[in-house]
């Protein structure tokens, strides 16, 4: 898992990115679709974008305040670990 954080000089926003490798693109897509439906609870102040490329799940955050960013990233990591544990216990995915 690779992570990177910095302040964007153009927008002044705090940015954070995370790349999570999965055994296959199928599993990365499952994680994406499990983690995507729930919106960020707060209106404005933060945006989060999830995408899959190959077998890697990528998440990009952009936030006004470090506090909001930290809460969102923490909560995402909690959710991610639950999804991965679920896959380990109840996977692998059936053939489509």
């Amino acid at each position, binding site marked *: 898992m690779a992570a990177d954080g910095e302040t964007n000089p153009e927008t002044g926003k705090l940015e954070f990115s995370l790349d999570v490798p999965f055994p296959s693109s199928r599993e990365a897509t499952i994680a994406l*679709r499990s983690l995507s439906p729930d*919106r960020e609870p707060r209106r404005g102040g933060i945006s989060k974008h999830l995408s899959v490329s190959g077998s890697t799940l990528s998440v990009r955050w952009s936030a006004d305040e470090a506090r909001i960013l930290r809460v969102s990233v923490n909560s995402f990591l909690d*959710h991610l670990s*639950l*999804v991965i544990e679920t896959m380990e216990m*109840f996977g692998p*995915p*059936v053939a*489509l």
Partner: protein
Amino acid sequence: MTVVIGFEGSANKIGIGIIKDGEVLSNPRRTYITPPGQGFMPSDTARHHRAVVLTVLQEALEQAGLKPADVDCVAYTKGPGMGAPLVTVALVARTVAQLWGKPLLGVNHCIGHIEMGRLITKANNPTVLYVSGGNTQVGYRLHRAAWQLFGQISNDPSPGYNIEQMAKKGTQYVELPYTVKGMDVSFSGILSYIEITQHCYNGDELPVALQETVFSMLVEITERAMAHCGSQEVLIVGGVGCNLRLQEMMGVMCKERGAKLFATDERFCIDNGAMIAQAGWEMFRSGQVTELEDSWITQRYRTDEVEVTWRD
């Protein structure tokens, strides 16, 4: 044959149940217990559910003697309830639905209680009183939750059950504020009244008074609903619904009207996974599914927002 697995975790219980055509194959549950007088906070509750959800899922499959391939649909509670616990349980439901290649179905928690009550009691077309820790309603009218009152009482196994045990000690009745306006009840004022006056009593009277007052209000509006609808059946569901005194009082009213009373015990009254599976079973059989992108949870979710496609 249709097999549905149901995931429930909207409040302090986490339950996963499996239903096969009206038969409960398994229904394991865990309760997050906090000290009396302390409610359960969303993040702590979510942490509790997170710690046990996968174990409970394994138990549900093992007790039912089923493999994931035998499941036809994965149902989960979409709302109403506390956000963080709802998300925790929904994440697992979404993930296994995809791993197993099964359709997903978001269920309204209140509909789950009602459908489970109907399944267990075989009531035909009842007026439903749904009274629980978080939600109180007759038919589709919403009321300030009885939780405001019963939340002060231990939630292990449920406040409705515990107040019944506490009330057995009291013999004297104390008058409390009684507010019914049409089909609405108001519980506000009762708790303040108790807080202000409790030093006057030895402690045994208040549970009795609370039960008698609140339940009288609930029986009154239920009777009014029956009169409006011409209904001859009452079904009590929800966690407080397993309270025997409530059932007794409702029974008296029903007898006077020549109506029939239906109620369930704590296995199915208190939040559980099978009730979500049962509502999911009805919805799935009528052709409903929830696409993953629409599977977000919602803390507020009125019962009458659900389109009932499974009943005339």
